[in-house]
């Protein structure tokens, strides 16, 4: 039995835990306001709000219900557009009406959910954050300008929102219905029930946020007995341990980006993360999921490769730690033994002397899979030579590539023009891109060179050398 709250209602469902929340909402509960646009998390028409306890506080996040396994709803508050409707329109709904932010209307409930999610987020909400909240919602009609105008109105209205007790304020001003005030108590009750009933069965398939498995194998996911690890608290921690950052396997990209530890070490983290999928997907996708998906282009994988991260594998009896760069063997083939799962990711943070940079270029800058992505970690010596370098790239090999030879060549050298030229030659010998929907192989090689040069400008003060190469 999966138990949770759906809008104002208590739910107990015996459906397979791998069926999607979207189908449950639309078919089994006949709440048709949540729309089916793509079933792969790329349009946002099925966006819902998911409320759960985070550090003693009820927090709501947007998720794409098409990819969310029903089992991941257990103990949570699921909100659809029907659950926001009141006697009159909420100010969010009214703003979208007033600014003509809706034309055919099919994407609209998703936008309403995301913008309401923006208001449910504690803390100050500026225009940039309001727009970020709808970065996963695609609209084909409006060209977004009217939606931007609606968002501006909403930001204006939200200025009066207090830092503490914002739920009360939102109810008082009819942004959300009154029943929201009873949700914390109801969730607490539900949680107690769940804890006493939670079966401790290992499933045959492990699933995190579902953002990849549900896209690739939705029937298999639905028919398998699943091991839901998304909410496993022991896998959700980010900590500093013996000088290394330890990230639990179920840490989501959102949690990663929000971690003060990581923000300290990566000053540009927010800028990098903005290039990676969308808000609802980042709310669901786990880091370990990105690693074991073994996509040749995984953004977080490429990010972690350049940190020369290790992963902690566990098969229930034994643990072992291996370098991420040794984990990938061939296309979608990993050094992952029968029954093993990733428990944690470990890396030494850049620290004072080492600097990190991430680059990604895709056909559409945001909410897209990279044509080529690349990350680089550099420590410079006092004389400007490269003391240590790690370099990774995606989209240029059958698996996420740690560019070992290029890095080895650059170590100890000053990033002068001829050195960079030779490094590029070596780099080209290390990669073997193929032509596909994300670009021709010739383009990917050129782009890899460009991103490498961008790293060198950013990390190795090599602007002059780069000019020598590009403007020769």
């Amino acid at each position, binding site marked *: 039995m999966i138990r949770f709250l759906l809008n104002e209602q208590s739910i107990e469902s015996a459906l397979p835990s791998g069926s999607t929340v979207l189908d449950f909402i639309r078919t089994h509960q006949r709440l048709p306001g949540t*729309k089916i*646009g793509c079933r*792969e998390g790329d349009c946002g028409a099925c966006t819902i709000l998911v409320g759960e306890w985070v550090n003693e506080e009820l927090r709501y996040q947007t998720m794409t219900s098409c990819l969310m396994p029903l089992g991941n709803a257990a103990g949570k508050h699921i909100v659809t557009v029907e659950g926001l409707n009141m006697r009159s329109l909420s100010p969010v709904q009214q703003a*979208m009406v007033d600014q003509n932010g809706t034309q055919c*209307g099919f994407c609209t*409930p998703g936008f309403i959910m995301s913008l309401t999610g923006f208001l449910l987020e504690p803390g100050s909400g500026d225009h940039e954050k309001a727009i970020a909240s709808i*970065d996963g919602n695609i*609209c084909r009609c409006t060209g977004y300008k009217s939606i931007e105008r609606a968002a501006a109105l909403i930001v204006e209205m939200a200025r009066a929102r207090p830092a503490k007790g914002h739920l009360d304020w939102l109810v008082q001003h009819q942004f959300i219905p009154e029943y929201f005030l009873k949700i914390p108590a109801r969730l607490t009750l539900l949680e107690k029930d769940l804890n006493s009933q939670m079966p401790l069965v290992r499933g045959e398939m492990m699933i995190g946020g579902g953002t990849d498995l549900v896209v690739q194998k939705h029937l298999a996911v639905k028919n398998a007995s699943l091991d839901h690890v998304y909410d496993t608290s022991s896998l959700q921690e980010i900590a500093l341990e013996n000088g290394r950052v330890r990230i639990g396997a179920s840490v989501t990209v959102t949690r990663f980006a929000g971690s003060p530890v990581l923000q300290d070490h990566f000053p540009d983290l927010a800028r990098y993360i903005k290039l990676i999928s969308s808000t609802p997907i980042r709310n669901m996708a786990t880091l370990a999921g990105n690693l074991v998906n073994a996509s040749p282009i995984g953004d977080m994988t490429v990010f972690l490769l350049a940190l020369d991260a290790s992963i902690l594998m566990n098969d229930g009896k034994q643990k072992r730690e291996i370098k991420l760069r040794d984990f990938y063997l061939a296309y979608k083939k990993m050094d992952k033994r029968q029954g093993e799962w990733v428990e944690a990711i470990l890396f030494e943070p850049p620290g004072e002397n080492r600097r990190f940079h991430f680059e990604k270029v895709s056909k559409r800058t*945001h909410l897209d899979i990279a044509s080529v992505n690349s990350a680089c970690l550099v420590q410079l010596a006092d004389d400007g030579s490269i003391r240590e370098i790690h370099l990774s790239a995606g989209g240029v090999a059958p698996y996420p590539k740690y560019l070992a030879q290029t890095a080895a060549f650059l170590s100890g050298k000053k990033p002068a023009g001829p050195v960079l030229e030779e490094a590029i030659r070596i780099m080209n010998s290390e990669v073997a891109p193929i032509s596909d929907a994300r670009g021709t192989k010739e383009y990917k090689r*050129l782009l890899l060179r460009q991103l490498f040069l961008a790293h060198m400008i950013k990390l190795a003060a090599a602007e002059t050398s780069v000019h020598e190469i590009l403007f020769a």
Partner: protein
Amino acid sequence: MNVKKPDTTRISGNVDAPGHVTGRSVYVDDIPVIEGMVHVKVFDSAVAHGKISFLDYSAAEQVPGIIRIFSAKDIPGENQIGGIIPDEPLLADGEVHYCGQPVLLIAADTADAAEMAIRKIEISFTPLPVITDPREAFKLGQLLSPSRVFTLGDARSNLAHCKYVYSGKAETGAQEQLYLETQGAYAYPTESDGIKVYSSTQGPTQVQRTIARVLGLGMNRVEVDVPRLGGGFGGKEDQASSWAAMAAMVSWILKRPAKCIPHRMEDMRMTGKRNPYSSDYTIGLDEEFRIIAFEATFYQNGGAAADLSPAILERTLFHATNSYHIPNVKVTAHSCKTNLPPNTAFRGFGGPQGMFVIEAAIDQAAKHIGVDTTVIQRKNLMDDGTEFPYGQIVKDSEAINSWDELDAHCDLEKVRAETVSFNAGNRFLKKGFSMMPVCFGISFTNTMMNQARALVHVYSDGTVGVSTGAVEMGQGVNTKMIQVAAESFGIDPAKIKLESTNTTRVANTSPSAASSTADLNGKALLDACNQILDRLYAFVKTELTDNEDETVEIKNEVVYINEEATVFNWTNLVRQAFLKRINLSAKGHYATPIIHFDKSIEKGHPFAYHVYGTALTRVTVDCLRGTYTIDSVQVMHDAGISMNGPVDLGQCEGGIVQGIGWMTMEEVIYNEEGKLLSNALSTYKIPDIYSVPAKIEVQFLKNEKPSMAILKSKAVGEPPLMYGIGAFFALRNAVLAFNENAPIPYSAPLTPEKVLMGLYG
């Protein structure tokens, strides 16, 4: 006494919006289904061209939950869904002509069961040659319809005398409509051998006609109802028919309700897109940069069946000279048959493809001569009294006016100076700009389609029900129809309900397309309202005066005689009229006057009027990474007297962004085997909120010239899309600012890949 009251008939914005923001608006998949509903899934071809040598679905039929599997031989009527030309089967019969062509229909209790069954179907093919390139198809003589030629003056002999003559090649890619709601239909049998079908279609009558043909029924047995569309953009003008016919056929044979709604990936690989074009051109100018002659040959990639391609081809020719007056023109167009899904309508309908070519030709000439492209563009804008290549005389042109007004507003000279100075000061960032004039003809180019009907019921309590042939797909036509009826009756719009589009209430409709929906259906609606008003006015006179010459009118629901308020208001007038057995219903009809076109000489007056405008697009290219941003699009648009500013603004902004998408990131990729690689939203990218121009500024020209538009509010659906073409040329200019020898052909879309290859090529 005439008391001034606020005008209650005015609406601003979209009446459907409250339903949308609450999720209460109903689309096909939201209609409550009847018990026992069957899910219909399509088994489609995995090869682009071949003979089916083996097909066995007996194992699939054994999958639990499978009700029945249908093939072409199970079709009760004709296996034919071609609209303009009967050249397309509903289900492949022996041969397949494109990847994604439907072969079998799986009827199952659940979608999952159908999916399991599909995996158990065994099929093999004897391969036949696959052609995806229209020029190759042309060489082999594979045409979908006869080629067309429009001529004016004598292009060939005049080219010989031009000071400047340039030839080149221009290409534009396909574009996926990507309506957020996929195709789909839901059908159930009704008594008297009938069937009712809810379809997400722009063309309810086309769906009705197709189902009647496939089932072997009279059209009167087929009721098609369209609640609303989650976007259409042309993709549901003709191609909604197959999905509706599939649902109808299964429902009809099994005598059960049936729903056929494809998954996004199925929709993308099984349906056609905007036709890609490859074109050759020659342009000739005199020493004063006047365009003296223009020749072009368009090779349209039609796909495997005609669909709407012949009509799209025609519109390419109509817009081959865009906003320019060119005295000598010869433009030729070939609709080429390839092994791709039949390509189809998409906002602009061949017009954008034609305009891109003349803009490329002008740009090439300017670059070679060494003048700014805008100089040649401005010099050759059309004025009243000149002749289009198809014989219509230019009237009420706003081509020059919209350009000059935009120039006055934006100061083109200053933009140019700013761009030059920015580029001089930045090594890795370069800016570019372009001007894009647009002239778009309003009417279906097939004259016969320019007709519409509307049905109006005034109920005895004074509320009003309106049915027209117009399909609401986000363009706001429901709102505009309510405005027409409210303004005509002089009543509160809240009293009027727009009904779904239904073939039993309004028959023989033209599709909601060609930007003409509000014009045609609005005028038919006006006719119906006027009939009822005439009867009501006559009744008022009978009741209150003996003088036939007095004027009766209704303003803000009050009935006036000679501007004097009477005892009647709308509600009691209607009640009294009903008691006196006055007919309170009417059917209106409209057929656009004046227009005609003679295909045998390719001359006539095909358009009721033209819509004009000009756009200035400014961009910045990151020359290290090859990425770019569209900084601003500023538009001077000719909307006539817009009847609904917010709705028309929304059409402009949305159209511009769609046009920019087509020119930049939207890349439909087929491999050599004709298989779609950009087959999901993860590989086919349309603009998101971050990629749209930081600034879109649309200004409406003040144009009160009489026109044939509804309430003088000009059609606005398609024209703005073509402003987006400016993004291509602005980006190209920015790339040239980095590398003046950049190999950057006139080939859209200009993806980050092409930009980077150009920057360093």
